[in-house]
């Protein structure tokens, strides 16, 4: 578990970090290191150089943004879990952050690092997709750009980012009348989700006025037909089935594909029902 040798630079500014990434020499960004370092220790990633952005204050913290939140990429899970503004405006993010791994990981692991890594078994992508968040990226040549989460994820460990870009901020829109709930079934070994679903539901009295549902890295558009219903169980079950039918799901040593498919449906149903209930209170 010893990585190949590499150089290490602690960036003094975002500009310096962007300059190093612009060299295009395979330099990797490290913040919490909880995704990158294990891969380096297995020698699955052999980076010649790491640029450490974990101490850049400008990338860290949570602010009000319109009616929602601006979250700096290097904000840790622990910070998100206890942040008053996050808990008030978008409690699902605090809830999910509080449930990631263990306290050591939450103290070091960053939300931007996790999203940029795009592990399909991690929890935050589904939350960002369901809430229709946007991500801000910067590069030396391209400057700043903003990408919808729904355009950002391109598949397992694949995103819209280039090697020269740095993930800087997350913009979460205001929740309005919506309430969101995340439901996951986790691997007993890794704690990562076998199936994880975030549902954001708005309701007027008993009727669903808005809905966004994502299963890991996929938006479950089939659930849109729940709009204008009173969260009817039969419609929900059918929509969940249809949403999952469209996904490519593979089995592995922990669970065969049939089981993953089944619990993805269960997670959709439970997340929507709970979000619907929460929106009514």
């Amino acid at each position: 578990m010893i990585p190949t040798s590499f150089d290490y630079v602690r960036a003094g500014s975002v500009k310096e970090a962007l300059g190093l990434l612009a060299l295009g020499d395979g330099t990797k960004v490290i913040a919490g290191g909880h995704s990158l370092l294990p891969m380096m220790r297995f020698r699955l990633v052999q980076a010649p150089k790491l640029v450490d952005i974990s101490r850049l204050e400008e990338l860290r913290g949570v602010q009000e943004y319109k009616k929602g939140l601006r979250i700096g990429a290097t904000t840790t899970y622990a910070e998100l879990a206890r942040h008053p503004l996050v808990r008030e405006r978008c409690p699902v993010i605090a809830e999910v952050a509080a449930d990631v791994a263990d306290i050591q990981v939450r103290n070091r692991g960053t939300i931007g690092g996790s999203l940029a890594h795009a592990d399909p078994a991690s929890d935050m992508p589904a939350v960002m997709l369901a809430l229709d968040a946007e991500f801000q990226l910067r590069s030396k040549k391209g400057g700043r750009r903003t990408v919808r989460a729904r355009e950002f994820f391109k598949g397992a460990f694949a995103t819209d980012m280039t090697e020269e870009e740095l993930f800087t901020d997350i913009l979460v829109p205001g929740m309005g009348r919506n309430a969101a709930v995340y439901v996951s079934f986790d691997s007993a070994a890794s704690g990562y989700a076998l199936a994880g679903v975030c549902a954001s539901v708005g309701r007027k009295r008993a009727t669903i006025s808005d809905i966004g549902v994502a299963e890991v890295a996929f938006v479950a558009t089939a659930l849109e037909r729940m709009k204008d219903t009173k969260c009817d169980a039969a419609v929900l079950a059918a929509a969940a089935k249809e949403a999952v039918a469209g996904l490519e799901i593979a089995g592995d040593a922990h669970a065969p594909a049939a089981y993953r498919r089944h619990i993805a449906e269960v997670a959709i149903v439970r997340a929507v029902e709970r979000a619907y209930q929460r929106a009514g209170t």
Partner: protein
Amino acid sequence: MATLFGSGIKRREDPRLITGQATYVDDVKLPRLAYAVFARSPYAHAKIARIDVSAARQAPGVLAVYTGADVKDRLVPVPCAWNVPNCDLKIPAHPLLAHDRVRYAGDAVAMVIAETRAQARDAVDLVDVDYEPLRATADPEKATQPGAARLHEEIPDNIGFTWVVSGGDAEAAFQGAEVAVSQRIVQQRLLPTAMEPRAAVAQYNRGSGQLTLWATSQNPHIHRFLCSVMLKLPEHRIRVIAPEVGGGFGSKIPAYPDEALVSFAAMELGIPVKWTEDRSENYKVTIHGRDHIEYVEMCGTRDGTITGIRTKVYAGLGAYASTAAPGIPTILHGLVYSGSYMIPNIHGTIYGVYTNGTPVDAYRGAGRPEAAYLIERLVDIFARKIGMDPIEVRRKNFIPKDQFPYTVATGLIYDSGNYEAALDKALGLLDLKAFRAEQARARKEGRYLGMGLVSYIEICGLGPSQVAGAVGFGGGLYDSAIVRVYPTGVVKVYIGASPHGQGEETTFAQIVAHEFGYPVENVEIIHGDTDNTPQGWGTYGSRTTAVCGSAVKVAALRVKEKAKLLAAHLLEANEADLEWKDDAFRVKGSPDKAKGMAELALMANVAWNMPPGMEPGLEATAFFDPTNFVYPFGTHICTVEVDEQTGQVKILRYIAVDDCGPPINPMIVDGQIHGGVIQGIGEGLQEIAVYDEEAQLVTGTMMDYAVPKASQMPHIEVAHTITPSPVNPLGVKGCGEAGTIASAACLVNAVCDALAPLGITHIDKPLTPARVWAAIQKAKGATP
């Protein structure tokens, strides 16, 4: 003074362990220390066509690279030390480095020694091997079938032994039986996962010809002996030190190639060499546990009397026969097929099978959990078949408390027991009536609650040396202690066993301090160094307290005997007029005329005024060899709720009632039970080492292998009954493996009880949500 024996004082070893002040093997730093890293086969089965280490030899910092060809004529293959008799046991050579063929993924092909560990690791990537892959299988049943990949040329069917256990007449019992049930049971491979992986540091002094080996060992004297064989070095020139050892669970009993190779390199190069295992390497090359595929049957009468057990077991050995491997599924498994019951007819056929998996050896419980699991599952299946409460079936077949010592059909003699008392105590804690009512209510609501119960026995306190010899164990099974009293009265005790987390530095000190009327601080326990401890056989098989603890007590009593003679001399009294009271020898009738141990120790050590003919000094050595094994027992109960939709199992309550004789330190006993139960729950719910079709371990990291975590575990309610053993002076039985032996079966029984309305009688562990859900789907007639 409060009595120390039986007092739950805090573990004295913990402060240094939890504040980072303990010295583990990897903490050993020596001048000019070099580092070893092994190049290991990525293939589970392959011929080595060519191996080229020239680039690795040229790499920065590299001091030497050794291949199989370099060592095969100079070192002896890894010995197997348990030659189980009365069977056709075949033990193929296990070369220290593979030279013509690799037989499991992880088999070492070269050792790189470099100035730093990182340099050695980098150079391993430059070891260039041409492998010609061969067909492979890690499945112990498939490996015996015609056409399966053959691991060792001399063993065409991969069957390393066929061992039969027999008592009574099982064939007749099954033929005439009113009822018989059968089940195929898979007891999955497990990864022992000690918190500290294995490590070794070897230092060779060319001047004195002495080799010192710091090693992660549960039994340094056994390692000294086996290293002496592998290295062809006389035993008295080897000193093995097991400093702090961070858990073993059986995985640090065996001899491995690694320690011997590191020693070889240190001798060749004349500098000390260190090797520390990675966690991934640990999962690949340190022994695994269990790996049984079993066909089991039970027969009996319609009114619940069990009359017979029959088994056919494919026990995976992995690629080579590890040190104790042949004895685990045979002596430690087949002989205890009676469990807690009077079962007159027993027949078992055990095939030990070579496969392309990591070698399998003793893992917490070692053979006995597999036996308890199959018996306790069968009792439930049998009870269901005859429509009788499984609790009543157990009661009906228990060996009654007045029948001990009791000889079971396989010939073992159980020392003592009171199985019904433990059962009753556990049921009392549960409130069975209330639970059954709740279960019935829940079933009406479509919820699945279940209760599992296990009344286990185990064979512990290994064991009489004469029996060890008779069953082919290549060593003794006595243990030893030197109790040495210093001039100021404080005591050091040197023991032959080698605790590594079980707390004997506390419990053994309690034994001595209790005898001497001392506070526990006056006694230190020294273990783990073959140069200052007497010959002993190590810590495993829940033997340390029953066997080595007894040696400690016997030695302490010998010291006390001598001290009494000295006291009589100094008090000018007859020995017969002295009595031990509180903390001193006192003259009966004039208790102020007294001599305590500290005062006597001073006189014995300065020897100014000794009785005529008495030697100076105050110390004694004892070698204790028990007359029989000990047989701890107990009843565990757990209640669960199964989520029908997701297959998730939630443990509602876990109750453990264990009887290990009188506890020396109840807190430590409870801790051992907790740890054992948790390991068994891991086995029951989530742990499984998975090999794919190419015999690659796909659960090779903790991301994929589900070691139980504190947050996943239930509260454990622990209670005890106390039935002393007559076979040792402490009356103790051993408790290290009890929890593991009981809990996996307990959990599966509970889940099968919960799902009984669906007609489910058995699901193979681990009961992952996916497996439980699939069983529910199958029971409902759906195709999952």
